[in-house]
């Protein structure tokens, strides 16, 4: 009887990125949409700190710490032997995935409720009017908000926000490597 040494192929981290990135992006998108409706249905307060802005405090944590969650999932389900380089790569790719998923989820909601974005923008404009901003500033803000809803505006926004989201998730993924992976055998 012959012993055959079978080396399994390195397990893919894409499942962890897709799963945790999807879950965190979905939670973030749902929270953002709910807060958007709260904003739409609230009276203009004249304060720039609206419901969406307050929710932003929580959303940024969801976005930045997804890298940590992905490493946790990968270490739990696949292997605890994760090098620093692998952790960094997984973290950056997580940032890319979170940016893409968040945009896709929010665009899907725009298909379900096509008036959602326009209502949010109108609500924000009403709020800014209540703050007493000059007409020029309001027009510029309206133009920028509507430009961001076009296909080219969305694409530009996605591409430009990937680097920072990627670097932050890279760092949190490295924290995940420190916490969840085996201590590296990196003796001199």
């Amino acid at each position, binding site marked *: 009887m012959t012993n055959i040494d079978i080396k399994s192929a390195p397990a893919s981290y894409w499942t962890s990125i897709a799963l945790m990135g999807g879950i965190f992006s979905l939670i973030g998108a749902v929270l953002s949409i709910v807060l958007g409706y709260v904003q739409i249905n609230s009276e203009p307060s004249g304060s720039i*700190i609206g419901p969406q802005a307050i929710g*932003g405090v929580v959303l940024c944590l969801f976005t930045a710490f997804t890298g940590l969650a992905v490493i946790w999932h990968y270490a739990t389900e696949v292997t605890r032997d994760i090098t620093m380089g692998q952790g960094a790569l997984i973290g950056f790719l997580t940032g890319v995935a979170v940016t893409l998923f968040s945009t896709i989820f929010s665009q899907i909601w725009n298909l379900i409720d096509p008036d959602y974005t326009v209502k949010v923008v109108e609500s924000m404009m009403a709020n800014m009017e209540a703050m007493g901003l000059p007409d020029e500033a309001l027009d510029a803000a309206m133009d920028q908000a509507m430009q961001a809803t076009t296909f080219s505006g969305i694409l530009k926004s996605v591409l430009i926000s990937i680097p920072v989201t990627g670097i932050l998730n890279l760092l949190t993924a490295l924290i995940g490597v420190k916490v969840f992976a085996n201590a590296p055998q990196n003796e001199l």
Partner: protein
Amino acid sequence: MSVSTPRLQLDLDRRSYLLLGGALWAVFVLSAGPGLYTSTDPGSGHWSFQLFRQVCHAIPSRTFHLGEVPMAVNSRCFGVFSGFVVAWSLIPQLGRRIYRRNWVSYLFAGTVALQFADVAGNAAGVWTNTLVSRWILGSGLGATMVLMVSDLLHRSAKVRSPYPTPTDSQSNPEDPS
């Protein structure tokens, strides 16, 4: 009779240190926003604000200003990025003192908890945080995040004195280390 205690020797992975450090410095500088090179506010559609769109709400009233121009991130996030670069610069000096020390993890957990406590206390009206207080708390979080990953940048070895004492040879004569 003297005993030579193994001494921890650390070797910094310079390539990774410089590469990641460069990325963190870039994030820090860009987070200062367009006020670095212009005196008029270009509006929230400017690319420097779009860079941080996913990670920071950047409400102008909660943001430091350079002249008349708000930074691209709020004061807490700017504190986080400030903490990144300061702590990253100190890694070569701090190496041995923080290498595989549990208190670094506790410090990190503590600074995360402080952010939640500060946001909750402010929202509940228990206290009112300020631009500076948020910046200081954010700096603590950013610095401890970097200290957490410091271990990964080092290779280590336990080295003994080249002059073995009698105790060393008696305790384990076959151990060359």
